[in-house]
């Protein structure tokens, strides 16, 4: 029987749309338009002062689920950019005009387009004599576990685009690269690629149904298609529960020249889920993702919908040694949470991860926002659980130690997301001369 022929039209349509974002360019767009017909999307405001000052203010502009958990836009693109020349007034005008085009062309929401541009420490170092403020926590990316050897992303800038609509993403990209003169009826002010070249382009998706639809034939996910339909992510569970996420206010820089901005770490993490699904029972996956107590008490049903807005992990953060000894396993969330709370109990990181099938390999793009990159580094160190194997040999460097066995970090980059007013090639002291 011809499976393709019997497939639901909607499933087939979704496949094409995702593929279109992954392919990108004119080919992707034409494939996409054949399926969407280019449905009308609300434009953005004429008066850009009505937009939030923070580029990273996304939470009020996306869907929430019934429990109040943020649902990120279904389709996302990361454009890694290198300046063609120095960051002069012309380049600055070009970048600002290109981003204003996006602002005006699409309503700033998951139905339209969310975007933010960020700059690497290498950008500030390469192009300026002055230094960033000493108290700005934006180090060069580095290795964050004793077993990873990632490539470091040191391109000048990272433009993050997100939308529920693949053709919005593709059209926006076409405008940025000068392939369109209008975008959703709005004149394209400038092509971003006049000032920068795209050094790397990475794409992804998130949300219930999409990973399941994408798993077939994907390297890293077993051939029997174990990813549940209800799961927003390949590993089969929800993540980013509201109670376990920092607020946007919390991660926002509250002083200095980039007040109103934030720092962003973006990792790309290859996933190898054969043993995750093949060797482990559901309870064992719950143990390794959350905590052994989550499995023992039956706290997680299915993809974790029943957890509501709180994974409940804080209750078990102190039990790591006891769990390691009793169960021979410790949980990923349990370990990471150790470092992800401040003295008052506030969550320090705002995680915005999404999945990828780039190069037909399952991976996770992991952007995290925080006031200081050191906050992220501390959480990652806690997640490494390097202290646990000394408690019992049953927990090894990467085996039975959360989810470390199944994930391989391929890229890390650190970025400054300036406030919107400074988004066009800022200087280290928070200026945009020439604009």
């Amino acid at each position, binding site marked *: 029987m011809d499976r393709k022929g019997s497939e639901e039209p909607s499933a087939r349509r979704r496949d094409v749309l995702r593929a279109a974002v992954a392919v990108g360019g004119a080919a992707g767009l034409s494939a996409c338009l054949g399926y969407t017909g280019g449905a009308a999307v609300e434009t953005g405001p004429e008066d850009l002062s009505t937009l939030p000052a923070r580029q990273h203010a996304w939470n009020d502009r996306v869907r929430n689920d019934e429990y109040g958990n943020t649902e990120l836009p279904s389709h996302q693109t990361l454009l890694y950019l290198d300046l063609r020349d120095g960051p002069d007034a012309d380049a600055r005008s070009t970048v600002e005009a290109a981003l204003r085009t996006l602002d005006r062309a699409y309503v700033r929401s998951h139905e339209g387009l969310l975007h933010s541009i960020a700059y690497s420490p290498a950008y500030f170092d390469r192009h300026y004599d002055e230094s960033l403020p000493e108290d700005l926590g934006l180090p060069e990316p580095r*290795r964050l*576990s*004793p*077993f*990873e*050897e990632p490539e470091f992303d040191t391109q000048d800038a990272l433009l993050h685009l997100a939308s529920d609509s693949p053709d919005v993403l593709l059209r926006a990209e076409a405008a940025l690269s000068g392939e369109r003169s209008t975008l959703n009826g709005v004149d394209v002010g400038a092509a971003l690629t006049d000032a920068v070249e795209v050094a790397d382009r990475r794409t992804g998706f998130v949300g219930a149904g999409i990973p399941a639809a994408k798993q077939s034939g994907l*390297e890293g996910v077993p051939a029997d298609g174990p990813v549940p339909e209800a799961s927003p992510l390949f590993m089969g569970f929800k993540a980013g529960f509201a109670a376990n996420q920092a607020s946007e206010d919390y991660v926002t820089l509250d002083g200095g020249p980039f007040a109103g901005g934030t720092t962003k770490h973006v990792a790309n993490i*290859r996933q*190898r889920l*054969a*043993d995750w699904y093949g*060797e482990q029972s559901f309870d064992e996956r719950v143990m390794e993702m959350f905590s052994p107590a989550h499995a023992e008490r039956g706290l997680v049903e299915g993809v974790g919908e029943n957890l509501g807005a709180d994974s409940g992990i804080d209750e078990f953060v102190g039990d790591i040694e006891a769990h390691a000894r009793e*169960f*021979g*396993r410790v949980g990923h969330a349990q370990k990471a949470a150790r470092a992800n709370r401040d003295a008052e109990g506030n969550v320090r990181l705002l995680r915005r991860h999404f999945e990828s099938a780039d*190069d037909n*390999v399952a991976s996770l793009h992991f952007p995290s926002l925080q006031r200081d990159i050191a906050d992220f580094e501390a959480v990652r160190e806690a997640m490494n659980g*390097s202290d646990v*194997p*000394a408690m*019992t*040999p*049953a927990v*090894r*460097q*990467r*085996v*039975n130690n959360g989810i*470390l*066995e*199944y994930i*391989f970090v391929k890229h890390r980059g650190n970025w400054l997301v300036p406030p919107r007013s400074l988004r066009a090639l800022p200087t280290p002291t928070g200026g945009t001369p020439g604009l």
Partner: protein
Amino acid sequence: MKRRDYLAGLGLAGVGGLAGCAGLVETRSVAAAPPVLEDRPDAVYFPTHVEGMGMAGSAESGDGEYAFGLMYSYPHRFWNVNGGAVSRTDIEDGDDVHLMATVWDPETRTVLPEAGLSLEIARGGELVSQEVIYPMLSQPMGFHYGANFGLGDDGSYTVTVSVGGVSTRRTGSFVDRFDEPASADVAFDYSRSTRDGLRFENTPDRAGSAAAVEPMEMMAPNAVAPAETDLPGDVLGTGSTGDAVLVVGRLEAPPEGVDGEGPYLYVSARTPYNRMVVPAMAVEGTLARDDGAVFEGEFVRTLDPDLGYHYGAALGGTAVESGDSLTLRVPTPPQVARHEGYETAFLEMPPVEVTL
């Protein structure tokens, strides 16, 4: 059977020594391994069959800190150990080889157990597989890291072997070593016919007996524990539990890298018959004499260039006297997967008393 008798008569040839014999051995399906014995002793036993292995290649990390060896054989069934639980991993459809990697110090040729290892396999730039592979014990090879992989077609594969920084306590000249991760590429020319030329010998006459397959000579060092006569300090006694041999010895002072005062009591754990290192178990001990316990504590997993991988405790000024009794307990058995013949040993490990 004549051919197999002939091959058996050769004994365990060096790695690759039989690669040219492909034509001598009938092609067989990898599923042909004989069934696991029904009545296995709770001890080391001679397996139902013996398989040869081929050398894929070796490499050093760029900084010269680590040397890697990559070997292959027929896909294996093996047994994973998690805590006290043992689960059998069978050969799956699509498995073509059992890949085995070892990592060692190029200077001392000490094999490094408890270093997380992963393999990435690519062919023509395309990802074929990537896995964290498990620490394992096999009789001919001792400690290594291994997993079954599907490769598919004959051809040239690039296997990137990656090691994580070693988290085990390190002492002596190893104190500042093995902190960083490293990788190296090994080119692996795989062909099914070469694989099928590897030795495969059913051993029905010896299967189940209290014995072990002889260690195999390899280009890579074996994880053999030092002979008692080669251990530094004074060897004070030997015990056995779960069929593991525990050699107890003393150094006057702890090796550099150990907090605490001497003397330093060490336990060098090895397999019976072939003296392979038995790593990754939890060991606690109580040293007692007439008036009761004089020391009680953990014997910490430690890697030392002279002692090798061992379990050690600094006694903090408590002298060891002749006639003292050391009771060793193993709350967690060796957390290493087992090839056949080791899967029933080193699991139930009751406390053992060694008179020093």
